[in-house]
């Protein structure tokens, strides 16, 4: 299935929760959805006979200055088609549903996105830092991140 066909089918099921479909630009075609119904949308994408996206290839966080975003790359082993799904959350309250219960891969990916970008995945069973030390302050890959002077008495600058 092509991205615009998936978009039409999702639109008929979830209505205005599906925001836009970008299939014009010379990049991977993607669909933007609202974060409220994300869990149900992902459930449909995995279990519907037309989609069968059984493989989450990657989950990445991004910083768009006023918003934070999460990008899901999906692949169907059976139907051999791909989908890029995007969701935006405001920086003041970066909460989005966790898809860890749908694809187990998302467990560590969501912990990484939380660690480095500060996106909070509600419903994740163990949302703690994965790369930085547990007592690290801030989320380092955000654009407005200020590098601290020192960590445990060790200087960060040379």
């Amino acid at each position, binding site marked *: 299935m092509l991205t615009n066909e998936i978009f039409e089918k999702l639109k008929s099921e979830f209505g205005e929760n599906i925001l836009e479909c970008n299939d014009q630009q010379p990049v991977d075609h993607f669909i933007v959805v609202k974060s409220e119904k994300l869990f149900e949308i992902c459930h449909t994408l995995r279990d519907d006979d037309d989609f069968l996206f059984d493989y989450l290839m990657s989950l990445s966080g991004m910083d768009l200055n006023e918003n934070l975003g999460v990008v899901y790359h999906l692949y169907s082993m059976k139907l051999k088609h791909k989908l890029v799904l995007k969701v935006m959350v405001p920086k003041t309250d970066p909460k989005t549903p966790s898809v860890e219960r749908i694809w187990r891969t998302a467990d560590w990916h969501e912990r990484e996105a939380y660690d480095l970008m500060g996106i909070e995945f509600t419903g994740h069973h163990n949302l703690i830092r994965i790369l*930085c*030390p547990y007592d690290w302050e801030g989320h*380092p890959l955000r654009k407005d*991140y200020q*590098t*601290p002077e020192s*960590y*445990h008495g*060790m*200087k*960060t*600058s*040379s």
Partner: protein
Amino acid sequence: MGLLNRLDDPYEGGGIVLGKIEDILNWGRSKSNWYLHFGLACCAIEFMAMNASHFDFMRFGTIPRTSPRQADFIMITGTVTFKMAERIKILYEQMAEPKYVISVGSCSNCGGPYWEHGYHVLKGVDKIIPVDVYIPGCPPRPEAFQEGMIKLQKKINEQAIFNKRKRLKKEQSDDNK
């Protein structure tokens, strides 16, 4: 010391060598260094080549140990992050004296490519533990490892074992004159 070359053609009269005990002890120490390898990044991959048969690191008498308590020196190969720095310090403190440190590669020497913008990288392992030999390179070639090992052996050979304090005091008083 070239003693092995003499095995086929020994000294006359049974082969007696006169020397200082200190030199013999140092010779033994420098030729059997057991090490704790702390591999952190690509330098550790290069170090695997160093350990394989072509370059044969064991010809220096070095044997890899898995415990810091059995090691004479620790080899820091790779990027030292803050998270790892604390562990390195613990391992170094667990080693028995006399102990040495070899810092391998740009990252552990000075921070390497992360020297300016790495929020997570310690800018040189010498900020937390004293380093005896720095091996430059990114990553260093096995020849550089050999050079570094020879440097460490030279350093051990020149070290004082007996009456260290007395000698140090004498040197200091000599300096003051």
